[in-house]
């Protein structure tokens, strides 16, 4: 028999994990919303950030929180270079080309990780992050609360950057109409380069968090990319705040699936959810239609 307390516990930890999900997929949702490019290498950028934090911790004992800017910069730099060297050249051709290109990047990076750092599963383990906190009989670790806060801060700052700053305005205008933006004096190529790099930075930022709350491995990127795309579609393309809600739905759904059935059916929930959205409401919960 499953007690009410354990349901509440899994509900809450699902909620917390769901907010983390919204950070994991923020970069992909942002790039997709602005540039209409689905970055299939998103998960690998994220894993790269995780590895940077992991090695900084293992070799120099750097605190993973201090390592986050470095991880973000590394992944952002990789995204910058990928866009500059490859993506830019085929930006205006068919969508499928950019899809295949980023898929190629993802295969390349994932196998580069295997070659350099073996296929071992790594966890960024820091003692004080494991420390439990009791709230009305429900337990959360300091690490979980910490990642929750970071995720919320990141989502809201990106939202305000887009809606309040001048650069954000330029990015949104470019997303609506490239040609008109170009005529209005916006350097659309630079906006694209910036948007893609920001996507990389966001992915790199969340890598250490993934390594802290669960683990990273060379193959982990694919699952992240799939989950990120499911959330983007569930939230509705272009709705960044909707991502938090969508993340919570997925997180809670997965947690309850694990409680009621079997941990191995966890991923099945996301996929079924994805099929349902496509059938019932393809524009997503908060999307304005395609």
């Amino acid at each position, binding site marked *: 028999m499953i007690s009410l307390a354990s349901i509440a516990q899994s509900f809450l930890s699902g909620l917390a994990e769901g907010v983390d999900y919204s950070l994991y997929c923020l970069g992909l949702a942002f790039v997709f919303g602005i540039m209409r490019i689905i970055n299939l290498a998103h998960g690998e950028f994220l894993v790269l950030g995780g590895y940077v934090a992991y090695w900084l911790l293992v070799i120099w004992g750097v605190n993973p929180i201090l390592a986050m800017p470095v991880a973000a910069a590394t992944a952002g730099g990789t995204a910058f270079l990928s866009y500059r060297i490859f993506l830019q050249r085929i930006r205006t051709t068919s969508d499928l080309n950019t899809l295949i290109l980023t898929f190629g990047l993802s295969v390349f990076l994932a196998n580069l990780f295997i070659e350099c750092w073996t296929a071992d599963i790594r966890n960024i383990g820091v003692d004080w992050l494991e420390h439990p906190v009791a709230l009305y009989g429900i337990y959360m670790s300091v690490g979980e609360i910490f990642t929750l806060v970071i995720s919320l801060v990141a989502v809201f700052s990106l939202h305000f950057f887009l809606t309040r700053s001048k650069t954000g305005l330029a990015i949104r205008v470019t997303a609506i109409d490239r040609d008109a933006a170009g005529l209005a004096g916006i350097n659309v190529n630079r906006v694209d380069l910036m948007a893609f790099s920001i996507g990389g930075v966001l992915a790199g930022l969340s890598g250490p968090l993934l390594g802290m709350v669960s683990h990273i491995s060379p193959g982990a990127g694919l699952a992240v990319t*799939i989950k990120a795309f499911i959330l983007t579609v569930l939230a509705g393309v272009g709705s960044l705040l909707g991502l938090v809600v969508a993340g919570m739905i997925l997180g809670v759904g997965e947690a309850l699936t694990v409680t009621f059935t079997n941990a191995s059916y966890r991923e099945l929930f996301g996929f079924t959810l994805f*099929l349902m959205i496509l059938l019932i409401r393809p524009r997503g919960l908060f999307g304005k239609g395609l």
Partner: protein
Amino acid sequence: MGIVLAIPFMLSFDPYYISIFIPAIILGAVSIAWNLLAGICGQVSFGHAAFFGIGAYASAILVMKADWSPYFAILAAGLCGALSSLIIGLPAFRLRGAYFALLILGFAEVMKLLAMNLTWLTEGSQGIFNIPSLPPIQLGGLNLEFFISRTTNYYVASFLMFVIYLAVYFLRWSNTGLAMAAVHGNEDTAAGIGVPVVRTKAIALAVSALCTSMMGAFYAHYIRFLSPDSAFDAYWSVMPIVGSLFGGMTTIIGPMAGALVITSVDEFLFKRLFETGHKMFFGLLLVLVIVWAPSGLLGNRIRKTAHGAEE
């Protein structure tokens, strides 16, 4: 095609080298099937490993648990693959854009998980051992034996590939095939002149999945061992893309040629350079080809001659 038949002679029937080329031929056939969907109908699939694995498992289970003859099981496995493809194809094809590509990526992951977790059916991650090989066939004076002879397996794989090539070739130039090309060109225009867009895409997907699953089933009876990791290996998703792009997506034979060239280079060069991470070259190759040579190895040449004919 002639080269395919001649490869065993060039390798003087050395079982080791032939055993390298059997998966290459299987891959060539899968690439042709993949390219029917992507190159002709314009729908890129990132998860053909799902159909490959479904075919392999379906055939192995039918033979071992229901005592079917492997030959019928291979056909039935093809149908299983085609049916499963419609489950994702029909919802996804109603929508524009990359939904199909992403949905099938998730589908492959989910299928692998199911194969790991439905232990009563698939033996889980432990895998299925001792799958029977194809029973011998007596063709006149010729005795085709599959258990030991690599050469027989090689030629039967080539035969299957040739059948798939012919099927795709005739489908390509049938009315449905022309409709597929129209959908690839521009969906709105195609719908405007009366092409049933969703149905056309679904047919391309189902045929592609059917062929892929049959090759998967053949693979199961050749290799005689299945595990979720080997049958649903991302290799079967990635390599048809690499092969097709490299060989030329606008052609029918290009994907096969591309797959054969890439597996040979992989086997004799990449694997010797980097043992564990050799697959990163496939990713790099995808990137380089799509940016600097999107028409591929054979595509370029064919386009040039077509231009010459016009002038």
